[in-house]
C-alpha cells in the first residue's frame, strides 16, 4: 500500500508558501503522493491549481484530487486542464472525481445539483474519449490520460466507476468500513465484466501532537454539513503515532492500494511528524 499526504490547501487560512512548500517537504519525507480536496464555498485553494503549484516544486511525487467535484465544471475545459496538468507534471496525476456531498457548492453554480450523477457519468465517458482520441490533449504528453478514480459508495456511483474508470476512492473512516465498500467495488467491477482488479484508495485525517485540538475544530467545521455525523467523523481524526499506525495497518490488511492522510492543520511540521509516526525517520 502506498501512503500519500494531503496538502493543507483545504485548511482555512493556510498561507500560500506553506501550501507550496508542503509538497516539497512531502516528497523529501518519502510520501507517494500529495492530494487535494475540492470545495467552492469554503476557504480553500482550488485543487487543480494547487496541484499545479505542487508539481512545479517537485519531481516524482504523484498528484491526486480526492476528490474533484467534476459536475461543477464544464467538461471540455476540465478535460483540457486535467490533460495539461498531467502533461506538465510528467504523467503524475490521478484524477479522483465525484458528485460532492454538499449542496451549497452547487447553489451558485450554473450546473444544477439535480442530475449531477448522470452528468458525472457523461463527463467521465466524454473526457476519456476526448483524451484518447487526442482531441483535447497536449501532444507532448507522456500518456493519453491520467488515472481516473470515482468517489461515492452508492450503487449508481459504483456502476459509473466500473463503466469507465480505473477504480474507487473511499471517503475515509475505519478500515472495516472500507473493507465492506471494497467488496462492493470488486463486485461492481466483476459484474461489469471488467478484467483484473480495480484500484481501491482511501483517506484519513491527521493532526499530531499539540495540533489535535485545532484539528478537531477543523473537522467539526469542515463536516458541519453532515449534522449529527460531524462528531463521529471528527472522532476519527488521528492524533497519535499509534493511531496512525493502526489505521495504516488496518487499511493495508483490507486491501487498500493507496491511503492519503490529510492534515487537519496547516502546520508544516506535521509532514515530518507524520513521517516519523509512520516509522520513516
Amino acid at each position, binding site marked *: 500500500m502506498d501512503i500519500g499526504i494531503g496538502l493543507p490547501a483545504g485548511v482555512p487560512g493556510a498561507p500560500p508558501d506553506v501550501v507550496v512548500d508542503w509538497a516539497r517537504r512531502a516528497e523529501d519525507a518519502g510520501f507517494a503522493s500529495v492530494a487535494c480536496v475540492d470545495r467552492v464555498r469554503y476557504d480553500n485553494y482550488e485543487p487543480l491549481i494547487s496541484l499545479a503549484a505542487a508539481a512545479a516544486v517537485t519531481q516524482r511525487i504523484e498528484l491526486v484530487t480526492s476528490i474533484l467535484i467534476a459536475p461543477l465544471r464544464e467538461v471540455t475545459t476540465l478535460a483540457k486542464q486535467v490533460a495539461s496538468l498531467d502533461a506538465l507534471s510528467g504523467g503524475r496525476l490521478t484524477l479522483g472525481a465525484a458528485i460532492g456531498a454538499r449542496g451549497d457548492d452547487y447553489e451558485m453554480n450554473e450546473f444544477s445539483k439535480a442530475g449531477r450523477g*448522470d452528468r458525472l457519468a*457523461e463527463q467521465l*465517458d466524454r473526457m*476519456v*474519449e476526448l483524451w484518447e482520441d487526442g482531441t483535447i490533449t497536449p501532444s507532448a504528453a507522456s500518456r493519453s490520460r491520467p488515472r481516473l478514480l470515482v468517489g461515492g459508495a452508492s*450503487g*449508481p*456511483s*459504483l*456502476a459509473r466507476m*466500473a*463503466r*469507465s*474508470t480505473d477504480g474507487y476512492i473511499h471517503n475515509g473512516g475505519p478500515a472495516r468500513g472500507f473493507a465492506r465498500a471494497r*467488496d*462492493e*467495488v*470488486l*463486485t*461492481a*467491477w*466483476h*459484474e*461489469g*465484466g*471488467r*478484467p*483484473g*482488479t480495480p484500484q481501491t484508495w482511501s483517506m484519513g485525517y491527521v493532526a499530531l501532537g499539540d495540533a489535535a485540538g485545532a484539528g478537531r475544530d477543523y473537522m467539526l467545521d469542515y463536516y458541519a454539513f453532515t*449534522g*449529527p*455525523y*460531524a*462528531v*463521529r467523523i471528527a472522532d476519527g481524526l488521528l492524533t497519535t503515532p499509534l493511531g496512525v499506525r493502526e489505521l495504516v495497518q488496518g487499511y493495508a490488511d483490507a486491501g487498500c492500494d493507496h491511503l492519503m492522510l490529510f492534515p487537519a492543520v496547516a502546520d508544516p511540521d506535521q509532514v515530518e511528524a507524520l513521517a516519523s509516526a509512520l516509522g520513516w525517520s
Partner: protein
Amino acid sequence: MKVTILGGGPGGLYTAILLRRLRPDTDVTVLERNAPDDTFGFGVVFSAATLSELEDADPVSYDRMAGAWARWDPVEVRYRGEVLRAGGNRFAAISRHVLLRILQERAVEVGADVRFRTEVDDPAGLQAETDLLVAADGLNSATRRRYEHTFEPRLTVEGSTFIWLGTDKVFDAFTFIFQEADVGPFQAHIYPFSDDRSTFIVECARPVWRAAGLDGTDASTLVPGDNDEHAIAYLQELFADHLDGHQLLGNNSKWLDWTTVRNRRWRHENVVLLGDAAHTAHFSIGSGTKLAMEDAIALSRALSRTDDLGPAISAYESDRRPQVDRIQEAARESLAWFDRYPRYLGTRAAVASPTPTLGDGFAPPRFAYSLLTRSSRVDHDNLRRRDPDLVLALDRWFAEVAVGGNHERPHLLPPPPSATPVDVGPLRLANRAVLAGEDRQDAVDGAPSAALRDDVLTRAAGGAGLVLVPRLAVSADARATPADAGLYTDAHAQAWRDVLAATGRAPIGVQLSHAGPRASMRPRTEGLDRPLRTGGWERVAASPLPYSPGSDTPTPLGDEQLAAVEADHVAAAERARDAGFDLLELDAAHGGLLASFLSPLTNQRHDAWGGDVAARLTVPLRVLDAVRDVWPQDRPLSVRFSAHDRAPRGLTAGDAVAIAATFTAHGADLVHVVSGQTTTRHLGDFSRWFNAEVADIVRNGAGVTTLVSGGVTSVADVDHLVLGGRADICVVAPLPAEPPWLAARRAPSPS
C-alpha cells in the same frame, strides 16, 4: 435551565428523571394529556444490553423494576405443528403499566413537575417560555407536525395490518406462531411480560384480513379504550391450539396499520424530538419504548455536559442517529421478510400466492431458519455462534432429509448446506458453490488464451460443484469485443476439448452468448461498451436502441437474421456438446441479444415478437428450443436472465416468474438469476447477495431450480442462501486474488 417535556410516556418521564438527577438545577416540567392510570398496551420488550444501561442511568428506578421483569432466552417458531427454538438471545420485558407507574413516581420524587390531563394545543406557545422543549409526544406528535418544515418527517405505512392484544397464558420464549387459515396466513408475535401475562400481537396481509371478514368493525365507532370484540373472538378461535384454554385480552385493541416514522432533522431551534415522535421501528424486531428510553439517556447525558444547547443536541443526535438508522434498517429487512414469507407456503397460501405449481412450500426447519436469519446481520455463522446446537441440527436436517443423504450411516458432523450435493436436471453436483472463469479479455479471433484455459482448470480442480466458462460467443459478430472468446470454429471446439479432457475435475459448463446491441465494442480493459474506432461490425437487437452513448443504432432483428442467429446457437451448442461440456447455459441476460427481447425497456416492437411477456419471450424461446433439440437430454441446460432491470418501467416480478416458468417448460433444468445492465442507466446495487431477492421470487414463485450470482463472496453466504431457500446453487465471485483453498493446494507438502 428550564426544560419542558411534552408527553408523559416512558421516554418523556425517563428524560425528566435523568435530567433532574444529572442536573438538579434544571427546572423540569412534564405535560401529559392523559390521566396517570390511562395506560394502554401490554408489555414492552428490552434487550439485556439496554437493561444494563437502565441500571447505570438510574439505579433507583431500575431496582424498583427488578421484581417486575420477565426474562427469557429463546426465540420459538411454531409452524405446521412443529416447534423450533433458537437460543443465544437475552430478552426482558415489563408491563407497560408497571413501568409507567414506577417512572411517574420516580419523576415526582426527583423533583420534576408532572402534570397530567394537560392538553397542549400549540407547542409554539411553550417553545417561547422554556429553554428546551422535548417533544416526546409519540407517534402522532403534534410538535413534529407543527415544525414539519424543519423536521421534514417521512411517514411510511408499511407491512401488514395488526392488532395489539394480551393473553393470560405465560409463554416462555419470544414466540412466533404462523397459522394458515383457509383465507390465508396469520402470524402472531408473542412474549411474556409478567408472571401472568404475555403480549400477543397478530398480523395478516390486508387481503387475508378482508377475506376473513375482519374489516366488518367500523374503527371510527370505537372510542379510546374500546376493543374490536369481533376480532378478538375470531383470533381466540384461530389460535385456540396455542392458547391451551387461556384467553386473548383486549386493551384498546383494534386493527391498525404500521407507520414507520423518520425525520430528516430532530431539532428545530430549541425543540428536539425524542422516541416515537422522532423514529419508529417495526415491533417484529423490538419495542419503541426501548429506543425512547435510550434516547432519554443520550439526551440527558448530553445536556449534563454543557450549558450550550446547540452542541448538546448535536451530541444527542450524533449518539442516537446512527443507532436508530441501524435499527430502522434491521426493521426494514424484517418487514421485507414478513411481506415475502407467504410465497414460502407453497400452494397452501391460497390468497397470498396464486401460483399453482409450488407443492407444499418450506418444511419447518427451513422456514424457521429463514425467519431467524431475516436480518442480513444474522447469517449462518452468526446464528451458529448464538446457538451451535440449533445450526448443527439444521445442517443435519438439510443434509439428511432435505437433500436425501445416506440414512444408514448418519453424518457424525453434517456438512454445511453449501457442501451438500444437488441435482441439476440429470447432473448431480457435489456441492452448491459455482465458480466462473475470469473473463480476461485476451482472446484472439475467439480462441481462448492459455491463461483463460488454465484459469478454468484451476477452478475445476479447486473443489467447486460446477465451473462456468463465461460468455463464449456463438459467432464472430456475436462477440461483445474483439477480445471475447467464442465457440464458432472447429479450432475453438478443439481448444476446449483439450481443456475438458483433464480428469478428476468438477463438471464444467459453458455460457453461450450473443452480445446483440453490446457487440462491436472495445475490449473491456478500456471500459464498458465503448464502440470500436475501426473494424467494427453490425449490431442486432430487438429494437433500434443504441446500448451506450456513441454506439451506432443496432438493426432490429428480422426473420432472416433470426434464422442465422438460431443456426449459430445450434452450431455452437453442437460444438459444446462434442467438446464435452457438462452443462450449457444460454445467455439471455445483461443487455445482450436475447435479453433485449425480454425487457420492455429494450423491446419496443409492435409485431409478434414484442408486447406482453409472452410475445417478448418468442425469440428467446425459438433459440432455446433449437438449442434444446441438439443438446443431449442427459446433460443439463440452463438459461441466465436479468430478472430485474434495476431501472424504472422494466420487468415486473410477475414477468420474471413467468419467464422462469416458461424456460423450464421448454426444457431448462436451471435458471440463473442476475439483474441489471439492461441499459447503461441501470441503478446499480452491489451489496451483499444483491440478487437474492429476485432469485427468491423466481425460485419460490415459479418453483424452479435456481442459480444466483451477485455479491455472493464466501461459502458462508452460500450456506445462508441455500438453507434459507433463496437459491439452490450460487456463483461465488469475485474471488479473493488468492483463494484460501488454492493457497492450501500450493503449500509445500509436510515431507
